[in-house]
C-alpha cells in the first residue's frame, strides 16, 4: 500500500478532514463555481481582492479527499498574493501534476500533491480548486468545469 500513502500523504488527509478557509466571505469581490462532471463534485470559491492582493479567500462544497485538500491548501497558498502570482503558482502546480519533473522549489506544501501524477484519473480532483480560482480571478461568472 506504499503507493497509496504517496497519494494520500498525511498533509492531504489532514486538510481533507479539517479544511482551512471553508465558508463564505461577507465582502467578496470575485467568485466562481467549479464542477467536476466525472464525479459530480462542486465547489464555490470567493475572493476578496484588496489593493491588488488576495486579502481573503473561502470555499464551500463537497468533494473527495484530494479535491477538498487541494482547495484547502490552495486557499492558504494564494492568500496575500497578487492575481499574477496566484496564476504563476497554478502553472507550477499544474506541471507538478502532469509533467514528470521535480516540483518547483517554491511550491511549498503544495508539493504533497506530486503523488497524484501517478493517478491520471485523479488529476482533475486536484486541479478543480485551481481552475475555479482562475475563473474567479477572470471574474468569469459562468461555472467552470474540469472537462
Amino acid at each position, binding site marked *: *500500500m506504499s*503507493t497509496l500513502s504517496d497519494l494520500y500523504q498525511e498533509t492531504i*488527509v489532514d486538510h481533507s478532514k479539517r479544511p482551512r478557509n471553508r465558508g463564505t466571505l461577507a465582502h467578496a469581490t470575485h467568485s466562481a463555481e467549479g464542477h467536476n462532471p466525472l*464525479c*459530480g463534485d462542486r465547489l464555490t470559491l470567493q475572493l476578496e481582492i484588496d489593493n491588488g492582493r488576495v486579502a481573503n479567500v473561502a470555499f464551500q462544497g463537497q468533494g473527495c*479527499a484530494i479535491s477538498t485538500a487541494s482547495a484547502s491548501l490552495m486557499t492558504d497558498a494564494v492568500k496575500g498574493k497578487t492575481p499574477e502570482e496566484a496564476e504563476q503558482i497554478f502553472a507550477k502546480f499544474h506541471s507538478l501534476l502532469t509533467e514528470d519533473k521535480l516540483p518547483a522549489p517554491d511550491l511549498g506544501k503544495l508539493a504533497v500533491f506530486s503523488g497524484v501524477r501517478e493517478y491520471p484519473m485523479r488529476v482533475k480532483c486536484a486541479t478543480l480548486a485551481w481552475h475555479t480560482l482562475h475563473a474567479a480571478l477572470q471574474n468569469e461568472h459562468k461555472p467552470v468545469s474540469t472537462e
Partner: protein
Amino acid sequence: MSSVRAEVIEAPAGFDVDRIREDFPILRELVHGKPLVYLDNAATTQKPQAVIDALVDYYTHYNANVHRAVHLLSTRATEACDRAREKARKFMHARSTNEIIFVRGATQGLNLVAQSFGRANLKAGDEVLVSGLEHHSNIVPWQMLCLEKGAHLKVVHIDDSGVIPLADFEAALTERTKVVALAHVSNALGTVNPIAYMTELAHRVGAKVVVDGAQAVPHMPVDVRALDVDFYAFSGHKLFGPTGIGVLYGKQALLDAMPPFEGGGDMIRSVTFEKTEYNTLPYKFEAGTPDIAGIIGLGAAIDYVNQIGLDRIAAYEAELLKYATHVVQQLPGVRILGQAPEKASVISFVLEDIHPHDIGTFLDQLGIAVRTGHHCAQPVMDRFQVAATTRASFAFYNTVAEVDALVAGIRKVQEFFA
C-alpha cells in the same frame, strides 16, 4: 476462488462458477499485482473466449463486406450476420427478424426511436413520460425531441427505496402521453421495473412504450412479446459481447410506418437524383456498412449466455446479491441506495465521510474494479442528495470470495481515513 466460501450461497444445479471463470481469459489478469476482482459489470462486461474467437475468426478467415458482392467471403459474412440476427430475434422472442435492428448500442437505439418515431408522431402539447431512475441516454433524446416539438417531458419520481410508485405512474399517464420511456433495470440502483404491467397501463392511454434494456438482458430472460413493449433496446457489450453493437427491437407495424433514421447505402432499394426508394425492414434503419465483426461477436455472446441459461444466471446472481447486500450492510456508516424488492445485481452505496472517488482509488490498488461517480444518472443522485456513489455490479462469473474481497477492501479504506 469461490470454493472457500461457496457454501454460503446456494448455486443452482449445474452452475459451476469456477468452470465458468475459465471461459474468461481476462479474469486471470493481475491488476497492480493483485488478481482482478471485476465488479463493474453494469458499465461493461468481460468477454468469453468464444466471443473473442468469433471476432478473430471473422477477421482471419472471411472478412468482407455484406450484401454487396457475389464472392464467397461476402456470402459467408452475410450469412453470419443473418444467423446473428436470427439469434437476437430468438433471444428477444421477437416475431420476425424484420423487428431486429442492429444499432451501435442501447443509446443509439433510443435515439433512433426518438428521432424517427418521435419526430413523426409528436406534436406541440404532447407528453413524453420518463421515470426518475433513467440513465441519461433515456432522458436526453426525449428532452431534445420535446424541445424541438414543443412537447412536455414529464417525470414520475422514485420513492426512498428506488421504486417507481405504480399509482404515481398511472396518475401521470394522460391522453396526451405519446411515449413512455423506461429502464427495465436501473443502472444506478438495480431496481427492476414491472414492465409488463406498466406497458399495459401505458397502452390504455394509447402511449407507446420504449424500454432501455441495457441492464436487463445480461441478468434475466426477456420476452418482448410477453412484455408487449413497442420498442426495446440493449447493448452487446453489457451482454458479454463486443462494444459498438446493440439491438433495437420494434414492433413491425411501427417500424414499417417510421421514416428512416439515417440515409446511405444498404438502407435503399433504388436511388436516383429525383427519388430514393427505401429498403425493407430491417435494412431501412441500417445505413452504411454495419459493424460486421460486432454483429458476429454478439451472436457468439448470445450463444454463450444461452448455453449457461439465463434462468440459472438469474438464480445465481440473486443469491450472490443477497449475500453481498448482507455483508455490505454490516459495514459501519454505510448507506445502500436502492432497496427495491425486485432488484438486479447492483449495490450502490455511500460511506459516511469518505468520498466514492477515494474508495475507488483504494479498491483499485487492491485489484478491485468498481464504478464511482454519478453513473450517468444525475437525477437519481439528486433524488438521494448525493453527488456520487460507489457501485459494485455483479455478473454470473463473480464469486462469494470476490464479494468478501470487496468488503475487506472497504474496511481498509475506512481504517485509513478513520
